[in-house]
């Protein structure tokens, strides 16, 4: 099983998970005259994909990786137990469709396949509180990349609806844990990544689904709102195909960028005993924070030497998420908040 068919289901606009009621900022852009036709829409979609699309793709890939590390999916009604992603993200498709289509020319060193060497791995046995807190942390990373409260609210609503649908389509322990961890609803890409893992998709496929839905929802909304020729708009989406592949690729690569190249060990002297550090009890957080500032191996040793194995394991996951892209789009923020003030809106967001 390589997840391709599951990916189609997951990305289908007919997936009954509430996506049809969101315009991704297009309704407000139309109201303000910022998007009036196919030309504007093309630029809107391209910019949205490069910002919100990349961020959601990376978060979805991270969530997929985490979910796949957790447990085997439980058997749904009338289905055989699945084994696909349970053995870890490294078992994703060795040659995904993306690599086949572009001739594999770009795969040299960009960390596009997520290997077990990078993945912090399955939790130590017997403590689900650990995975609950990891899901919360990943959701908090999504919060930190979503400055606009209107966008956080829309993301949580969509995530909640997707989670309820996914739990019936692809029941799994990871989805149950996620639901317990974030009862108000996780950010949509987090739910999407967890759903993707439960459906048997690899992180790259989760990223591709996230990138795809980040532009198809707004494109459909524009067709409805502006009465555009639907084929014209689908041509715009077709023109984005390469960018979608690239976005999914970059999203996955960013997971292996846990240590940014510019964040080498401090030399200018203010890395000594730290003022303002939280007192003991925040050991895992400290370890995670250290991991951002040091080489990975160093951080792991550092953490393992000072805190319990669970905390070190958590810190390795945390460190994996620090450098995920956070590409902001000020106009989308303003549009999302403006949308809430529109008394005659058709879409939720």
């Amino acid at each position, binding site marked *: 099983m390589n997840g391709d068919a599951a990916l189609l289901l997951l990305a289908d606009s*007919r*997936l*009954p*998970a*509430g*996506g*049809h*009621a*969101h*315009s991704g900022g297009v309704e407000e852009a139309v109201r303000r005259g910022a998007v009036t036709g196919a030309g504007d829409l093309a630029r809107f979609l391209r910019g949205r994909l490069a910002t919100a699309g990349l961020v959601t793709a990376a978060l979805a890939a991270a969530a997929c990786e985490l979910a796949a590390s957790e447990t085997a999916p439980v058997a749904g*009604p009338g289905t055989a137990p699945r084994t696909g992603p349970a053995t870890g993200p490294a078992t994703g498709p060795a040659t995904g469709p993306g690599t086949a289509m572009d001739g594999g020319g770009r795969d040299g060193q960009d960390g596009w396949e997520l290997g077990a060497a990078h993945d912090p791995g399955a939790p130590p046995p017997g403590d*689900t*509180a*650990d995975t*609950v*807190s*990891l899901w*919360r*942390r990943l959701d*908090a990373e999504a919060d930190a990349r979503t400055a606009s409260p209107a966008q956080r609210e829309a993301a949580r*609503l969509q995530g*909640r*609806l*997707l*989670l*309820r*649908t996914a*739990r*019936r389509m692809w*029941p799994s322990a990871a989805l149950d844990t996620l*639901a*317990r*961890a974030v*009862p*108000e*609803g996780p950010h949509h890409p987090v739910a999407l990544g967890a759903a993707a893992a439960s459906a048997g998709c690899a992180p790259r496929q989760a990223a591709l689904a996230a990138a795809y839905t980040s532009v198809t929802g707004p494109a459909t*909304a524009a067709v*409805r*709102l502006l009465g555009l020729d639907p084929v014209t708009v689908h041509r715009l989406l077709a023109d984005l195909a390469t960018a979608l592949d690239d976005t999914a690729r970059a999203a996955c690569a960013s997971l292996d960028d846990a240590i940014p190249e510019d964040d080498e060990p401090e030399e200018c002297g203010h890395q000594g005993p730290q003022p303002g550090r939280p007192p003991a*009890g*925040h*050991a*895992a*957080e400290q370890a995670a924070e250290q991991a951002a500032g040091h080489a990975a191996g160093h951080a792991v040793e550092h953490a393992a030497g000072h805190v319990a194995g669970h*905390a070190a394991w*958590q810190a390795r996951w945390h460190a994996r998420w620090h450098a995920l892209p956070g590409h902001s789009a000020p106009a989308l923020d303003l549009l999302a908040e403006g949308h809430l003030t*529109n*008394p*005659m*809106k*058709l*879409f*939720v967001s």
Partner: protein
Amino acid sequence: MGAYHDDLHDAAEPHGRALRLGIGGPVGSGKTALVAALCRSLGPSLRLAVVTNDIYTTEDADFLRRAGVIDPERILAVQTGCCPHTAIRDDIAANLDAVETLEERFGPLDLVIVESGGDNLTATFSRGLADRQIFVLDVSGGDKVPRKGGPGVTSADLLVVNKTDLAPMVGADLTVMSRDAAAVRDGKPVLFTSIREDRGAHSVAEWATHMVDAWQREHGEPHHHAAHHTARNATEQAAQQAPAS
């Protein structure tokens, strides 16, 4: 929230929960007026909540809140992105979430009314969302509408023909409507009313009460679904034990 019920195999595990009543029909036929009327008539005897599916934002919900027929907190509005029928038939996730949110906040409830956005004659509720559904027509659409049929007219558990007071003015023959409806509805009931004259839509309210009674006889008295809250408490305890994150 609604995503966290333990049973995952059926959208609407019927045991011990409120009857979910969908109300659909064309734009302007009087769906919102009917919801208000039912709230007036049933409010004293049944524990109610309402989900509206507005075309534009929260207009219907606001109308109901202003009408003062139900605690405003018990009304949730769902937006449908230009496609009201999608939200009640093809992709019911947002409506289910709203229904279950109301049940969790105010449960146990006897009846949750889901009002669709105004749509066309083909729009019906998914059985995954509504246990029973009412389709509302009005006489001003012409007395031929029941004969034309369509899934709403033929399959709804109750067909309501509203604005009978206007029949003489628009030249609609109620006996024709009654006969045509009976012909396509295979014995399912049709009620004629004028909510403007009968502010409680008492005949419809009586039907709804029967439906609720029958539902509770079959599936038991509604009780509060505690599963979600239990899970959340357990999660909070776990969080207190785990390192802050």
